[in-house]
């Protein structure tokens, strides 16, 4: 039987899709089931109920989804502003293989070190008696130490910038790397200004990378328990903390309901990002 050379045998990928369904999707679907049951005295009550969702509303827990999304969105935006120029420079700006290698290595190494040891260091720096407050007091800029430097939304955002920078750079770098130098040269030869080339050639071609970068950065941040716990000092309650508190008393149903709520929001947002990316990527070409 004739197969065109571009044909992919369904068996090659469907087998993994099947495994994925069994080990990843079924357990995830289980969350939906849990969220429609209730717990009484550490026991599950097998009776459909929306009690778990009502609890999410009445305890004010739904607010953690909003706060978590807000923090993740701010940090993701900061990462885009920092990472796009850097990834572009890395992929197309520098001609030195050494600089490129060292930069990429520097972005990779932090993954080997535990996030908590890296994060806890900020506490000394941002604390009431830390060097920043000491310097500001010394200079007479402030009379009292600033208490919002630490254990605040500010410190959480600051602490998240470092750990989630590489996840934004990698996919962007990969996407920029794939842009043919000749396309850029052609754009120049046709008289396009650098800004025009950036917006009309590089951005559309780099969009899949940006989309992936947003997903890589935004989504794991939603579930990050370490930075908000260490730098939020319990004043910034995010999703992971709220879920953990529920799991300590084996309250699976409310934990599931809260997660389902976040999942629905995330899927909606990511679909939107993907749709926009797809449209612009096509339009740009």
């Amino acid at each position, binding site marked *: 039987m004739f197969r*065109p*050379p*571009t044909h*992919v045998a369904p068996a*090659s*990928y469907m087998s993994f*899709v099947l495994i994925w369904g069994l080990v*990843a*999707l*079924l357990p995830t679907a*289980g*969350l939906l089931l*849990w969220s429609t049951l209730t717990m009484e005295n550490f026991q599950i009550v097998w009776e459909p109920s929306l009690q778990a969702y009502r609890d999410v509303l009445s305890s004010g827990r739904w607010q953690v989804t909003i706060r978590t999304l807000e923090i993740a969105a701010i940090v993701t935006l900061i990462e885009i502003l*920092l990472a796009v*120029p*850097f990834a572009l*420079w890395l992929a197309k*700006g*520098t*001609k030195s*293989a050494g600089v*490129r*290698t060292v*930069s990429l*290595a520097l*972005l*990779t*190494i*932090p*993954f*080997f*070190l*535990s996030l908590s*040891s*890296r994060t806890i260091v*900020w506490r000394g720096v941002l604390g009431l008696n830390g060097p920043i407050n000491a310097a500001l007091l010394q200079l007479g800029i402030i009379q009292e130490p600033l208490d919002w430097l630490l254990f605040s939304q500010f410190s959480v955002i600051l602490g998240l910038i*470092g750990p989630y*920078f590489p996840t934004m750079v*990698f*996919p962007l770098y*990969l996407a920029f*790397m794939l842009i043919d130098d000749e396309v*850029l040269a052609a754009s*120049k030869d046709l008289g*396009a200004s*650098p800004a025009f080339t950036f917006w009309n050639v590089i951005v559309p071609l780099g969009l*899949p*990378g940006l989309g992936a970068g947003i*997903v*890589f950065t935004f*989504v794991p941040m939603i*579930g990050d*328990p370490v930075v908000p716990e260490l730098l939020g000092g319990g004043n910034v309650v995010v*999703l*992971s903390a709220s*879920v953990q508190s529920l799991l300590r008393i084996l309250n699976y149903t409310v934990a599931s309901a809260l997660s389902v709520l*976040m999942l629905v929001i995330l*899927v909606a947002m*990511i679909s939107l990002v*993907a749709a926009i990316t797809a449209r612009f990527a096509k339009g740009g070409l």
Partner: protein
Amino acid sequence: MSNRQPTINPIPHWSEKHGWRRLGAVTGFIALSFIFAPILWLVVMSVSEDPLSGFPGPFTLTYYGQLLEQTGWVDPLLNSVAIALGVAVVSMIASTLIGRAIPRIRRGQFTLTGVMLLPMMIPGVVIGTALFLYFRVGLDMKLGLWSLFLGHLIWAFPFSFLSVLIVALRFDVRLLDAAADLGSGPLERFWRVELPQLKDGIISGGLFAFLLSFNEIARSIYLRGKTETLPIYLWQQAASHSSHVPLIYPLNVLILIVSSALVALAFWVLFGRTKT
């Protein structure tokens, strides 16, 4: 003073324009200092007599000596490396299979992509619990190394999948037609035409998978059975009622040194030499 030179072409190649380069280097420098200032501090404190005091010095290597005497961290480290390697290899193979297929299937591209990415959007503790309930309570299986591997794979695979997908979306399938016209068979087409084009995405994906697995903790707590990984070990040390932090600092520094050497070597081989 700017060192602008008179030039024949009034519009320079954008990548030759200094403003862009400087901006890229500056933002990179800012972000990297955010990452590495804490790490340097960690190094300094690891050789300080009182690492918790917040002030460096007087300097000593005592804690390194103690670390080498206490070998509790060796087994967890080996477990972590073994799991991360397995996750990386399986992620690379699976992402290649699916990543190359998605741009070429006619229907359900979007759904299939979504289905592959779904588990990464659930907070770690929740997916850990969901998997625990499924395997342990539902299927009555004893947890251990394999469930850690599976939990990490579910976490890491979407990332490596996306890495491959970025590259695969840009792959011109007409090259395969051309290769077929020139008489090469399916295996040769894959090996000599397709794979070289996808290589960067696959390798980055594998690397990503390794790193994500190596540092994973939220899912591991629920899936470990009796097995300890390095992050679990470190976290337990920090949670105990007496301070083991002096040993965590030098351990992190040792990992820093070894991983730096490995990463530098790997990157030089993979990216540094080939593209100049």
